[in-house]
């Protein structure tokens, strides 16, 4: 009997240790306290309920453990007049409030919205039963790293550095890497960074050069507006969207420190437009790429088409307003400002034609 108890206890202990070990592998160097977040420009979830925050003002990436938030049912999420409600919550006028990003924790369906007030005071909100609730960032379990300046000597130049700003445009996590795109006020160029997670001192940065078919003979150094990571034919890739609107793919293993990369332009999605967000939806083994835009509807691209397309667009699109490359369809959603996955469909913040800014789900029918 004693042996049996010992055995059971050992089993429980080993299981518990196993859980702790599994849980702590990514959070081993997390500490409790105030991470000193000065702005929330972009957010994304990694595994184990870790929210990554791109903070341009403090030039840092913060990983926060939000795994303690209970699983929720957001299947019927719908909040109308989102901008007015957020302004009311802050006691401010709507023009003092900006929604900077939205992210869904895929492990428990919690929805988070990041907001800037006034001169950039950051606020993180959680959607709870169609109500908004503030998440305090003053005492959390976190880990963080500085965004190193790629031009190291700038760090010595105090006067210069205070002028130099690098604004995070988008952030994603994939397989132990936090990836960032952004634009500085110094040079109109695409800067792209890859930072190991758990954080250490190692950071890679580089630029992504593209041949912009719509743009004819002149080279472009345009910055990435939005991107995501995915698998193309099983291999990790970055899919990046640029203003005006080339879609570019690049194998992730090509991102190496200080190197200048040439992405493969696989589609031109029309001029006079800027992509604002992109996600991947998977349903019954089929994968789709969704792209939200400023001046075009929400686009749906089938991954089988993307994977089958092996060409690179190198010649200008001559027909005005025309598109080229991988085929896609327009879905009947315009002015989609934020996009993420929820259940087996998409969650969006959309400015409806009535003027109402709504947080709501898109129909899963589009992916059946």
């Amino acid at each position: 009997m004693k042996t049996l108890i010992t055995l059971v206890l050992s089993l429980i202990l080993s299981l518990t240790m196993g859980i702790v070990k599994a849980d702590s592998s990514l959070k081993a160097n997390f500490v409790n306290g105030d991470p000193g977040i000065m702005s929330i420009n972009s957010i994304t979830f990694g595994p184990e309920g870790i929210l990554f925050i791109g903070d341009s003002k403090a030039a840092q990436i913060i990983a926060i453990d939000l795994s303690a938030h209970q699983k929720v049912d957001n299947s019927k999420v719908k909040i109308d007049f989102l901008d007015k409600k957020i302004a009311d919550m802050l006691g401010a006028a709507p023009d003092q409030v900006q929604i900077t990003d939205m992210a869904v924790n895929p492990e428990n369906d919690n929805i988070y919205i990041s907001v800037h007030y006034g001169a950039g005071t950051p606020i993180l909100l959680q959607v709870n039963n169609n109500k908004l609730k503030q998440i305090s960032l003053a005492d959390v379990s976190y880990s963080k790293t500085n965004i190193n300046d790629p031009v190291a000597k700038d760090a010595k130049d105090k006067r210069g550095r205070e002028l130099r700003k690098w604004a995070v445009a988008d952030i994603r996590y994939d397989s132990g890497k936090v990836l960032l795109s952004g634009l500085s006020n110094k040079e109109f160029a695409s800067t792209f960074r890859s930072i190991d997670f758990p954080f250490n001192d190692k950071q890679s940065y580089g630029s992504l050069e593209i041949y912009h078919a719509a743009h004819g003979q002149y080279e472009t150094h345009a910055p990435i507006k939005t991107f995501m990571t995915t698998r193309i034919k099983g291999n990790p890739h970055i899919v990046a969207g640029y203003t005006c609107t080339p879609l570019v793919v690049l194998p992730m293993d090509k991102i190496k420190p200080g190197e200048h990369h040439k992405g493969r332009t696989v589609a031109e999605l029309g001029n006079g437009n800027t992509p604002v967000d992109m996600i991947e939806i998977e349903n019954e083994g089929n994968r789709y790429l969704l792209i939200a835009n400023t001046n075009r509807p929400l686009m749906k691209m089938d991954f089988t088409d993307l994977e089958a397309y092996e060409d690179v667009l190198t010649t200008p699109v001559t027909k005005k307003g025309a598109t080229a490359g991988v085929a896609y369809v327009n879905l009947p959603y315009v002015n989609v400002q934020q996009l993420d996955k929820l259940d087996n469909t998409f969650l969006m913040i959309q400015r409806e034609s009535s003027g109402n800014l709504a947080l709501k789900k898109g129909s899963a029918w589009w992916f059946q």
Partner: protein
Amino acid sequence: MRNYSHILLISFFFALKVFSQTSPKVMVSKDYLLIKKSEITAGKPMVYRGEISNVEISSSTPILGNVVEEKERIRFNPVIPFGWNQKYTLVYDSTIEYFEITLPKKYKYLSVEAIYPSTKKLPSNLLKWYFKFSKPINQPSVYDNIRFTDTNGDTLDKVILPLNNVLISDNGLLLTVWVEPGRQKRGLIPNQQLGAVFEEGKEYSLIISKNLKDYEGIAMQQDYIHRFIIVDADREQPTINSWKISIPTPGTTSNLMIHFNEEPMDYGSTLSSIRIIDPQKKEIKGDLKLTNNEKTLVFKPLQPWKKGHYQISIDVSLEDLAGNNLNRLFDSDINDIQHGSPDTKEKFLEFVVQ
């Protein structure tokens, strides 16, 4: 007398204007609201933006804040400080009171202190503007409040590249705005479709609207207007060999001056791209500033100059007003690109103090 002392205290704390319904049992400042504990029998006080009637309360969203129970008072700390001249509704028990914190008479309004480039003649392929404000600005609506007009007063379309995250310095004072690069680069569709943003030979006005607010939500009092004339496009790289150096005197902290051959340079990239190196190859500490409509850089060292050979290090990403840097033109022809060596991050000029 007690009520009078309250009023004094309230005046002292940020000049509160209390509406008629608000009792002296409530005290408000920008950062908190205090209610006498004896006034609340149950529940927590709630604050709403605007004047909300009794029937509207159930459908209204209360302001975020935390409630702290003190010895004799209940304290409500709003997450965002209460705004100036903003009406609020306070609800506790069955009482509804309205309040507003009036703007101090000596409030220093937001103003534009400097604008770069400051020169009145600008190349048609100008790429960036920098605005220096007197205090941190309200960032969410910044692009709605900057516009360009022609001599007819008509507002130009698609001039600015709107960014979700505005480029603003850490202190919130220096804003960088990109002129739509798609229109400024030759060969791009927006350029072909709409042409360059500005036409050569024409005069324009840059207007920063008086509606631009500061970080506390108070708008500028008057429009800021800057007129400029557009001249030929600049399609030449800056060449540092054409720069002239005014050499300082040894034993003094006199200015080292670098004249950019009468070409105005980009404000942000110039100040962050140039360093002065002493004979021991160490960077000299000092004050850098652009003068003469950004055509001259002035460096004043903290320590007196010593005799010897000095270097001026220039990062190759230093740009002129059209985004041309030391390595490339902003819109290089793809068949004709001659990238500088990737290892060449900086170029040097030399001078001797004697």
